[in-house]
């Protein structure tokens, strides 16, 4: 497989780029795999990549009903951070962060991971208590973090209104310098190319129509295009569709799918270097390399698979952004869109064994999925390779909703990500 580099680009430019190889094959599936991953989004592709590359399981297929990376991977606001409150979540997201830090080189695909830092603003005394609590926990968990005062914030984001005469003056912020953004599509494509390179079959435009379960053990899947495909283990990484697959397997999940909206401005010259998030006024913003202000809105309160939400949610978000950055008032919103986020009651994911043997689920990431992509794929791959859950995944069992051992990250999850 060809290696991507500046030199390679130059070489190909001499030939008018007519000889680039495919980034991944378009194979016909085999009859049987060691592992089938259902779902070719970022998490599924990352799982396949690490299975093949790190855990030596190369007889793997990813079955995707649409196109690769076409779900929430393609619809999020690309923020990466690991400053979660609870130990279990912090460890998982920090595992992801460490993988992010060398991901472009590991994949030989520039995912444009840019550690421009993430600010979480506090506007009330309780916000500041929560920020102190979280930053202290982060530091002791090995996650970078600082608490900043308004003066320090102003230095990092000079164009934000840090004055005292706003409705909810900024009292401080947590600051994770290693946080940042990445290019969302590139993450899916990079993992896809990497997985393919290690022999994984990526089967697109193919829908899993049923799970084959014998005596409480899964043995394969049925598809609309290729009939039955056997597998020793099956991992479902299908976000909003998890409930549908769980139903095929005969169990329910504590998930609800909600619209999560986002929007971008027209591209403007660089004006905002970092990610700014505010749970209190309900909005967050960063500026992409293309110049768009990328803005995340809140989750709509109702269930929805429509990839769109309600307009007042957009209005409230824009109000929050104008409140934080009054100078953006004359900048214009170009486009809005919606994703479908599968949310758990405790705002933490499910990475879990299930009542069916050899069937594993990875879902419920809510608003936190993109930033976890490599970590989620990595621990899920480890679990699928071994047939038992990785240490970091264990707390995220679906059975926690029975015994009550929830990991309540609503505070850290906030509006967004």
């Amino acid at each position, binding site marked *: 497989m060809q290696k991507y580099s500046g030199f390679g680009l130059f070489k190909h430019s001499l030939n008018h780029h007519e000889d680039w190889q495919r980034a991944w094959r378009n194979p016909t599936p085999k009859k049987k795999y060691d592992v089938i991953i259902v779902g070719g989004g970022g998490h599924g592709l990352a799982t396949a990549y690490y299975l093949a590359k790190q855990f030596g399981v190369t007889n793997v297929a990813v079955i995707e009903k649409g196109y690769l990376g076409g779900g929430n991977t393609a619809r999020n606001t690309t923020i990466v951070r690991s400053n979660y409150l609870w130990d279990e979540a912090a460890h998982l997201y920090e595992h992801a962060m460490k993988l992010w830090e060398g991901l472009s080189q590991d994949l030989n695909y520039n995912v444009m991971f840019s550690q421009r830092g993430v600010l979480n603003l506090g506007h009330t005394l309780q916000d500041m208590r929560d920020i102190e609590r979280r930053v202290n926990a982060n530091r002791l968990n090995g996650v970078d973090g600082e608490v900043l005062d308004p003066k320090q914030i102003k230095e990092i984001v000079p164009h934000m209104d840090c004055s005292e005469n706003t409705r909810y003056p900024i009292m401080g912020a947590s600051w994770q310098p290693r946080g940042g953004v990445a290019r969302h599509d590139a993450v899916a494509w990079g993992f896809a190319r990497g997985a393919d390179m290690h022999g994984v079959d990526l089967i697109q435009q193919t829908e899993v129509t049923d799970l084959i379960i014998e005596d409480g053990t899964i043995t394969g899947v049925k598809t609309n295009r290729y009939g039955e495909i056997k597998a020793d283990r099956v991992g479902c990484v299908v976000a909003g569709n998890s409930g549908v697959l769980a139903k095929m397997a005969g169990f329910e999940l504590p998930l609800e799918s909600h619209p999560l909206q986002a929007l971008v401005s027209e591209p403007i010259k660089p004006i905002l270097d970092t990610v700014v998030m505010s749970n209190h006024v309900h909005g967050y913003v960063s500026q992409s390399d293309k110049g768009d202000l990328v803005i995340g809105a809140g989750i709509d309160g109702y269930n929805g698979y*429509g990839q769109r939400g309600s307009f007042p949610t957009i209005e409230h978000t824009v109000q929050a952004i104008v409140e934080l950055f009054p100078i953006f008032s004359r900048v214009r919103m170009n486009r809005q869109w919606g994703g479908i986020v599968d949310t758990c009651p405790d705002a933490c994911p499910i990475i879990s064994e299930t009542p069916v043997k050899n069937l594993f689920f990875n879902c419920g990431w809510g608003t936190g999925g993109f930033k976890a992509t490599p970590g989620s794929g990595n621990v899920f791959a480890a679990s699928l390779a071994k047939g038992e859950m990785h240490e970091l995944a264990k707390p995220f069992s679906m059975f926690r909703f029975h015994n009550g051992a929830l990991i309540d990250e609503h505070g850290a999850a906030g509006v967004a990500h």
Partner: protein
Amino acid sequence: MFHIYCPHCGEYREEEEFHAKGQAHIARPLDPEACSDKEWGEYLFFRKNPRGLHHELWVHAAGCRKFFNVTRDTQTYEIKEVYKIGEQPSFVTEE
């Protein structure tokens, strides 16, 4: 933005007046003590989350403050009917 008919006020109002309260018809177990952890967990957290027809609970928060049920398609967002607490939906999915 949804346009929702409030069965108590007898007219359509904007979504801004309402709050979505999740899946409808989740009855509190009559004898909670008799529930296992699993059963209680399911009452608390496990939901249908259908793609398609969904029965959900809404409250006319800024209006008459009454709760009521809505049958809505979660994909097209069409509202098929609204009905009062204690009533049954006439639109149901075939299982």
